[in-house]
């Protein structure tokens, strides 16, 4: 089985990730997922691709910490986080988070918490590629 936390260039399968999550426990009553995708527009410009750069070792370590923290904080049965790097085409998947718990509320809360924390804490940077030129994205809330 693939690691529960990964940074990879290639696309991922949501079905495979959720399937892997479900194999961990039959007490899982709720699974919440978040998928981040590459928008084809930004501030009035057409975005064709997004390029991701990462401080790989630290990013992976931070994502692993996030998973452990989320499992403890929300009493999850399991969680998975996958983030792509390299060049991602408009409309493609970027990031996937899945949180499984006995009940839906902690699964949904954990999923929301994980993507918010990932954006704050994981050293990954995105650059939007447009016909007008490339631009690094400035984070916003």
């Amino acid at each position: 089985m693939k690691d529960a936390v990964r940074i990879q260039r290639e696309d991922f399968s949501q079905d495979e990730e959720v399937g892997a999550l479900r194999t961990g426990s039959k007490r899982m009553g709720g699974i919440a997922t978040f998928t981040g995708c590459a928008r084809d527009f930004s501030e009035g410009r057409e975005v064709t691709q997004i390029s991701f750069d990462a401080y790989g070792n630290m990013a992976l370590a931070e994502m692993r910490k996030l998973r452990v923290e989320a499992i403890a904080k929300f009493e999850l049965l399991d969680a998975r986080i996958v983030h792509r790097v390299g060049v991602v085409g408009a409309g493609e998947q970027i990031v996937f988070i899945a949180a499984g718990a006995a009940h839906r509320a902690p699964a949904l809360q954990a999923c929301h918490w994980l993507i918010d924390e990932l954006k704050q804490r994981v050293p990954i940077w995105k650059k939007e590629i447009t016909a007008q030129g490339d631009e690094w994205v400035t984070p916003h809330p």
Partner: protein
Amino acid sequence: MIKVLFFGPVAERVGASEVQVPFRTGILLQEVRAQLQESHPAAFEIVCFTAVNGEHALDMSLPLADHSEVVFMSKFSGG
């Protein structure tokens, strides 16, 4: 030597993803930063975080060991 890495927008402004800073006993993190900030002021305008050997470093008076890995980073924009 101290290995200094740059990623994303900081690397673009520096024009490199890695530079080496000579090690000397007692060298502090803030001295490495000051030295690089002088040569790459535009890059350091957007530096918000510093990591040493893969961990966030909040204390800029941290003494560095030889072969340390230092990273000066802008705000993250993953996800």
